[in-house]
Protein backbone atom coordinates (compact mmCIF):
# COMPACT_ATOMS: atom_id res chain seq x y z
CA UNK A 1 0.00 0.00 0.00
CA UNK A 2 1.36 3.43 -0.95
CA UNK A 3 1.46 5.99 1.83
CA UNK A 4 1.63 9.59 0.63
CA UNK A 5 2.35 12.90 2.33
CA UNK A 6 0.54 15.74 0.56
CA UNK A 7 0.54 19.50 1.07
CA UNK A 8 -1.86 21.91 -0.59
CA UNK A 9 -1.41 25.67 -0.16
CA UNK A 10 -3.14 28.59 -1.83
CA UNK A 11 -5.45 31.57 -1.36
CA UNK A 12 -8.38 30.51 0.81
CA UNK A 13 -11.77 30.17 -0.85
CA UNK A 14 -15.08 28.48 -0.14
CA UNK A 15 -15.05 24.83 -1.15
CA UNK A 16 -11.30 24.35 -1.34
CA UNK A 17 -11.24 21.55 1.26
CA UNK A 18 -14.09 19.76 -0.51
CA UNK A 19 -12.27 20.12 -3.84
CA UNK A 20 -9.08 18.58 -2.44
CA UNK A 21 -10.93 15.75 -0.70
CA UNK A 22 -13.01 15.00 -3.80
CA UNK A 23 -9.99 14.98 -6.11
CA UNK A 24 -8.23 12.50 -3.84
CA UNK A 25 -11.33 10.36 -3.33
CA UNK A 26 -11.59 10.14 -7.12
CA UNK A 27 -8.32 8.19 -7.24
CA UNK A 28 -9.22 6.00 -4.25
CA UNK A 29 -7.15 7.86 -1.65
CA UNK A 30 -8.04 7.17 1.97
CA UNK A 31 -7.23 10.22 4.14
CA UNK A 32 -5.71 9.08 7.41
CA UNK A 33 -4.25 11.99 9.41
CA UNK A 34 -4.84 15.49 8.11
CA UNK A 35 -4.77 19.06 9.28
CA UNK A 36 -6.03 22.22 7.63
CA UNK A 37 -5.83 25.79 8.77
CA UNK A 38 -5.83 29.35 7.52
CA UNK A 39 -2.62 31.31 7.84
CA UNK A 40 -3.15 35.02 7.16
CA UNK A 41 -5.78 34.18 4.57
CA UNK A 42 -3.86 31.34 2.96
CA UNK A 43 -5.42 27.92 2.96
CA UNK A 44 -2.87 25.33 4.17
CA UNK A 45 -3.58 21.62 4.28
CA UNK A 46 -1.21 18.78 5.12
CA UNK A 47 -2.34 15.19 5.02
CA UNK A 48 -1.31 11.59 4.90
CA UNK A 49 -3.29 9.23 2.67
CA UNK A 50 -3.06 5.67 1.48
CA UNK A 51 -4.12 4.08 -1.78
CA UNK A 52 -2.99 5.75 -5.02
CA UNK A 53 0.54 6.13 -6.31
CA UNK A 54 2.20 9.54 -6.04
CA UNK A 55 1.72 10.04 -9.78
CA UNK A 56 -2.02 9.29 -9.57
CA UNK A 57 -2.49 11.69 -6.66
CA UNK A 58 -0.49 14.42 -8.40
CA UNK A 59 -2.60 14.08 -11.53
CA UNK A 60 -5.82 14.24 -9.53
CA UNK A 61 -4.72 17.44 -7.77
CA UNK A 62 -3.70 19.12 -11.04
CA UNK A 63 -7.35 19.94 -11.66
CA UNK A 64 -7.33 22.37 -8.70
CA UNK A 65 -6.76 25.92 -9.87
CA UNK A 66 -4.58 28.41 -8.04
CA UNK A 67 -3.05 26.11 -5.44
CA UNK A 68 0.44 24.72 -4.95
CA UNK A 69 0.57 21.02 -4.21
CA UNK A 70 3.34 18.63 -3.27
CA UNK A 71 3.01 14.85 -3.15
CA UNK A 72 5.65 12.55 -1.73
CA UNK A 73 5.70 8.86 -0.92
CA UNK A 74 6.59 8.20 2.74
CA UNK A 75 7.25 5.10 4.82
CA UNK A 76 4.64 4.17 7.38
CA UNK A 77 5.25 5.30 10.99
CA UNK A 78 7.62 2.92 12.75
CA UNK A 79 6.15 3.03 16.24
CA UNK A 80 3.09 4.32 18.00
CA UNK A 81 5.19 7.42 18.76
CA UNK A 82 4.66 9.78 21.70
CA UNK A 83 6.22 8.72 24.96
CA UNK A 84 7.40 11.16 27.60
CA UNK A 85 5.44 13.82 29.41
CA UNK A 86 3.14 16.24 27.61
CA UNK A 87 3.87 19.92 28.23
CA UNK A 88 2.66 23.23 26.81
CA UNK A 89 4.86 26.28 26.21
CA UNK A 90 3.29 29.73 25.85
CA UNK A 91 5.29 32.70 24.64
CA UNK A 92 3.96 36.20 24.04
CA UNK A 93 5.49 39.60 23.53
CA UNK A 94 6.55 42.15 20.97
CA UNK A 95 7.29 40.63 17.59
CA UNK A 96 10.97 40.19 16.84
CA UNK A 97 13.18 37.97 14.75
CA UNK A 98 14.13 34.57 16.12
CA UNK A 99 11.51 33.91 18.80
CA UNK A 100 10.44 30.55 17.36
CA UNK A 101 14.03 29.46 16.71
CA UNK A 102 15.22 30.34 20.21
CA UNK A 103 12.29 28.72 22.02
CA UNK A 104 12.20 25.53 19.98
CA UNK A 105 15.98 25.16 20.26
CA UNK A 106 15.65 25.17 24.06
CA UNK A 107 12.95 22.50 23.86
CA UNK A 108 15.15 20.39 21.59
CA UNK A 109 18.10 20.88 23.93
CA UNK A 110 16.05 19.38 26.75
CA UNK A 111 15.38 16.31 24.59
CA UNK A 112 11.83 17.50 23.96
CA UNK A 113 9.92 16.70 20.80
CA UNK A 114 7.49 19.37 19.61
CA UNK A 115 4.22 17.69 18.66
CA UNK A 116 2.12 20.73 17.81
CA UNK A 117 2.92 24.38 17.27
CA UNK A 118 1.05 27.49 16.30
CA UNK A 119 2.11 31.12 16.12
CA UNK A 120 0.04 34.25 15.55
CA UNK A 121 1.01 37.82 14.87
CA UNK A 122 -1.83 40.19 15.76
CA UNK A 123 -0.90 43.86 15.63
CA UNK A 124 2.45 44.06 17.37
CA UNK A 125 1.71 41.06 19.61
CA UNK A 126 3.42 37.79 18.76
CA UNK A 127 2.07 34.60 20.36
CA UNK A 128 3.62 31.13 20.19
CA UNK A 129 1.98 28.05 21.71
CA UNK A 130 3.85 24.75 21.44
CA UNK A 131 3.03 21.31 22.75
CA UNK A 132 6.01 19.11 23.46
CA UNK A 133 6.78 15.64 24.77
CA UNK A 134 9.60 15.92 27.29
CA UNK A 135 11.68 13.20 28.92
CA UNK A 136 10.42 12.48 32.43
CA UNK A 137 11.73 15.04 34.91
CA UNK A 138 13.10 17.44 32.27
CA UNK A 139 10.47 20.14 32.84
CA UNK A 140 12.06 22.12 35.66
CA UNK A 141 15.40 22.57 33.94
CA UNK A 142 13.76 23.48 30.64
CA UNK A 143 11.63 26.08 32.46
CA UNK A 144 14.83 27.74 33.70
CA UNK A 145 16.42 27.72 30.25
CA UNK A 146 13.26 29.11 28.67
CA UNK A 147 13.14 31.90 31.26
CA UNK A 148 16.69 32.94 30.31
CA UNK A 149 15.92 32.80 26.58
CA UNK A 150 12.69 34.75 27.09
CA UNK A 151 14.35 37.53 29.03
CA UNK A 152 16.97 37.87 26.28
CA UNK A 153 14.15 38.14 23.73
CA UNK A 154 12.09 40.45 25.94
CA UNK A 155 9.05 38.13 25.84
CA UNK A 156 7.02 36.25 28.44
CA UNK A 157 7.19 32.47 28.65
CA UNK A 158 5.35 29.83 30.67
CA UNK A 159 5.84 26.06 30.66
CA UNK A 160 3.21 23.82 32.21
CA UNK A 161 2.02 20.21 32.13
CA UNK A 162 -0.74 19.41 29.64
CA UNK A 163 -3.32 17.48 31.56
CA UNK A 164 -5.49 15.31 29.36
CA UNK A 165 -9.21 15.39 30.05
CA UNK A 166 -10.31 11.81 30.30
CA UNK A 167 -14.08 11.61 30.60
Amino acid at each position, binding site marked *: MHELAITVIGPDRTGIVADVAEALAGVGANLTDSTMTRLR*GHFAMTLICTGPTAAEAEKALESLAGVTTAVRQVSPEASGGGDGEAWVVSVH*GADRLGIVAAVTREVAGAGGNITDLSTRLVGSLYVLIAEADLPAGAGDELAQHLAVAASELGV*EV*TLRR*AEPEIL
Partner: protein
Amino acid sequence: MTFPELPEGRVLPVVTAPATVLSTVGDEVDPTDPAVLQLAADLVATMKVSAGCVGLAAPQVGVGVQVFCVNVVGHPKAATVHGTFALCNAKIIEASRWKAGREGCMSVPDLTGDVKRAGRIVVEAVLPGTGEAVTITTDAFEARALQHEIDHCAGNLFLDKVAGAHAIYQRKVYL
Protein backbone atom coordinates in the same frame (compact mmCIF):
# COMPACT_ATOMS: atom_id res chain seq x y z
CA MET B 1 -23.42 40.34 50.54
CA THR B 2 -23.62 44.06 49.82
CA PHE B 3 -20.69 45.97 48.46
CA PRO B 4 -20.06 49.60 49.44
CA GLU B 5 -20.88 52.23 46.86
CA LEU B 6 -17.93 53.59 44.91
CA PRO B 7 -17.35 57.25 44.02
CA GLU B 8 -17.83 58.54 40.48
CA GLY B 9 -15.28 56.88 38.21
CA ARG B 10 -13.40 58.11 35.19
CA VAL B 11 -13.08 56.10 32.01
CA LEU B 12 -9.42 55.22 31.46
CA PRO B 13 -7.66 53.99 28.33
CA VAL B 14 -7.08 50.20 28.29
CA VAL B 15 -3.56 48.98 27.53
CA THR B 16 -3.01 46.00 25.27
CA ALA B 17 -0.33 43.31 25.00
CA PRO B 18 2.59 43.48 24.55
CA ALA B 19 2.78 45.96 27.44
CA THR B 20 5.16 45.31 30.31
CA VAL B 21 2.61 46.20 32.99
CA LEU B 22 0.41 43.29 31.87
CA SER B 23 3.22 40.83 32.63
CA THR B 24 4.34 42.37 35.93
CA VAL B 25 3.23 41.03 39.30
CA GLY B 26 0.95 43.67 40.81
CA ASP B 27 1.74 45.15 44.22
CA GLU B 28 -0.62 44.71 47.13
CA VAL B 29 -2.47 47.91 48.00
CA ASP B 30 -3.71 49.67 51.12
CA PRO B 31 -7.45 49.37 50.47
CA THR B 32 -8.22 52.43 52.63
CA ASP B 33 -6.01 54.67 50.47
CA PRO B 34 -8.38 57.14 48.72
CA ALA B 35 -6.38 56.68 45.49
CA VAL B 36 -7.16 52.94 45.58
CA LEU B 37 -10.88 53.67 46.04
CA GLN B 38 -10.74 56.05 43.07
CA LEU B 39 -8.89 53.44 40.99
CA ALA B 40 -11.59 50.86 41.78
CA ALA B 41 -14.25 53.36 40.71
CA ASP B 42 -12.33 54.13 37.51
CA LEU B 43 -12.08 50.42 36.70
CA VAL B 44 -15.85 50.01 37.11
CA ALA B 45 -16.51 53.09 34.96
CA THR B 46 -14.17 51.79 32.25
CA MET B 47 -15.69 48.29 32.39
CA LYS B 48 -19.20 49.71 32.07
CA VAL B 49 -18.51 51.64 28.87
CA SER B 50 -16.71 48.70 27.24
CA ALA B 51 -19.05 46.42 25.29
CA GLY B 52 -18.99 42.82 26.48
CA CYS B 53 -16.53 43.56 29.29
CA VAL B 54 -17.24 41.49 32.41
CA GLY B 55 -14.10 42.36 34.35
CA LEU B 56 -11.15 44.71 34.38
CA ALA B 57 -7.95 44.69 36.42
CA ALA B 58 -5.66 47.59 37.36
CA PRO B 59 -2.74 46.44 35.15
CA GLN B 60 -5.10 46.79 32.18
CA VAL B 61 -5.27 50.53 32.79
CA GLY B 62 -1.52 50.68 33.29
CA VAL B 63 -1.40 50.42 37.09
CA GLY B 64 0.55 47.43 38.41
CA VAL B 65 -1.46 46.74 41.58
CA GLN B 66 -3.88 44.09 42.85
CA VAL B 67 -7.23 45.77 42.26
CA PHE B 68 -9.95 44.62 39.88
CA CYS B 69 -13.68 44.71 39.28
CA VAL B 70 -16.13 42.24 37.79
CA ASN B 71 -19.75 42.28 36.70
CA VAL B 72 -21.30 39.17 35.13
CA VAL B 73 -24.92 40.25 35.69
CA GLY B 74 -27.10 38.81 32.93
CA HIS B 75 -24.40 36.63 31.43
CA PRO B 76 -25.88 33.36 30.10
CA LYS B 77 -23.08 31.24 31.59
CA ALA B 78 -23.34 32.81 35.06
CA ALA B 79 -24.99 31.01 37.99
CA THR B 80 -24.04 32.70 41.27
CA VAL B 81 -23.85 36.46 40.69
CA HIS B 82 -22.72 39.08 43.22
CA GLY B 83 -23.40 42.10 41.01
CA THR B 84 -20.82 44.76 40.24
CA PHE B 85 -17.97 44.78 42.72
CA ALA B 86 -14.29 45.63 43.12
CA LEU B 87 -11.72 43.75 45.21
CA CYS B 88 -8.19 44.41 46.41
CA ASN B 89 -5.41 41.91 47.20
CA ALA B 90 -7.62 38.95 46.24
CA LYS B 91 -6.42 35.39 46.74
CA ILE B 92 -7.99 32.11 45.69
CA ILE B 93 -8.09 29.85 48.72
CA GLU B 94 -10.16 27.01 47.27
CA ALA B 95 -10.64 25.87 43.68
CA SER B 96 -12.45 22.85 42.31
CA ARG B 97 -14.57 21.55 39.38
CA TRP B 98 -12.01 22.38 36.71
CA LYS B 99 -13.46 22.94 33.26
CA ALA B 100 -12.21 24.32 29.94
CA GLY B 101 -13.94 27.33 28.43
CA ARG B 102 -13.32 30.00 25.81
CA GLU B 103 -12.32 33.45 27.04
CA GLY B 104 -11.12 36.75 25.67
CA CYS B 105 -9.54 39.86 27.14
CA MET B 106 -9.73 43.58 26.39
CA SER B 107 -5.92 43.64 26.57
CA VAL B 108 -5.62 40.90 23.90
CA PRO B 109 -8.39 42.14 21.61
CA ASP B 110 -7.61 39.98 18.57
CA LEU B 111 -7.44 36.52 20.16
CA THR B 112 -9.54 34.23 22.31
CA GLY B 113 -8.41 30.99 23.92
CA ASP B 114 -9.57 27.85 25.68
CA VAL B 115 -8.51 27.96 29.31
CA LYS B 116 -9.19 25.49 32.09
CA ARG B 117 -10.64 27.27 35.13
CA ALA B 118 -12.16 26.15 38.39
CA GLY B 119 -15.95 26.09 38.29
CA ARG B 120 -16.16 26.74 42.00
CA ILE B 121 -13.83 28.98 44.00
CA VAL B 122 -13.50 30.68 47.34
CA VAL B 123 -11.72 34.05 47.25
CA GLU B 124 -10.43 36.13 50.14
CA ALA B 125 -9.96 39.85 49.55
CA VAL B 126 -10.42 43.29 51.04
CA LEU B 127 -12.85 45.95 49.86
CA PRO B 128 -11.62 49.27 48.48
CA GLY B 129 -12.51 52.17 50.77
CA THR B 130 -13.46 50.36 53.98
CA GLY B 131 -10.71 47.72 53.87
CA GLU B 132 -13.26 45.21 55.13
CA ALA B 133 -12.10 41.61 54.68
CA VAL B 134 -14.49 39.52 52.60
CA THR B 135 -14.75 35.88 51.57
CA ILE B 136 -16.57 35.26 48.32
CA THR B 137 -17.76 31.83 47.24
CA THR B 138 -18.86 31.64 43.66
CA ASP B 139 -19.11 29.38 40.64
CA ALA B 140 -19.55 29.11 36.87
CA PHE B 141 -18.86 32.28 34.86
CA GLU B 142 -18.34 34.58 37.84
CA ALA B 143 -15.66 32.17 39.09
CA ARG B 144 -14.01 32.25 35.64
CA ALA B 145 -14.08 36.06 35.57
CA LEU B 146 -12.54 36.29 39.06
CA GLN B 147 -9.74 33.87 38.12
CA HIS B 148 -9.02 35.84 34.93
CA GLU B 149 -8.79 39.13 36.87
CA ILE B 150 -6.75 37.66 39.73
CA ASP B 151 -4.37 36.36 37.05
CA HIS B 152 -4.03 39.91 35.66
CA CYS B 153 -3.09 41.12 39.15
CA ALA B 154 -0.34 38.47 39.19
CA GLY B 155 0.96 39.50 35.75
CA ASN B 156 -0.60 36.62 33.84
CA LEU B 157 -2.72 36.66 30.70
CA PHE B 158 -5.01 33.89 29.44
CA LEU B 159 -2.29 33.27 26.84
CA ASP B 160 -0.15 31.89 29.67
CA LYS B 161 -2.75 29.21 30.38
CA VAL B 162 -4.26 28.17 27.04
CA ALA B 163 -4.83 24.45 26.67
CA GLY B 164 -2.69 23.82 23.60
CA ALA B 165 -1.32 24.90 20.24
CA HIS B 166 -4.77 24.88 18.67
CA ALA B 167 -6.57 26.47 21.59
CA ILE B 168 -6.11 30.08 20.46
CA TYR B 169 -8.44 31.64 17.94
CA GLN B 170 -8.26 34.79 15.91
CA ARG B 171 -11.17 37.16 16.30
CA LYS B 172 -10.65 39.05 13.07
CA VAL B 173 -9.71 37.75 9.67
CA TYR B 174 -6.72 39.39 8.06
CA LEU B 175 -6.99 39.22 4.30
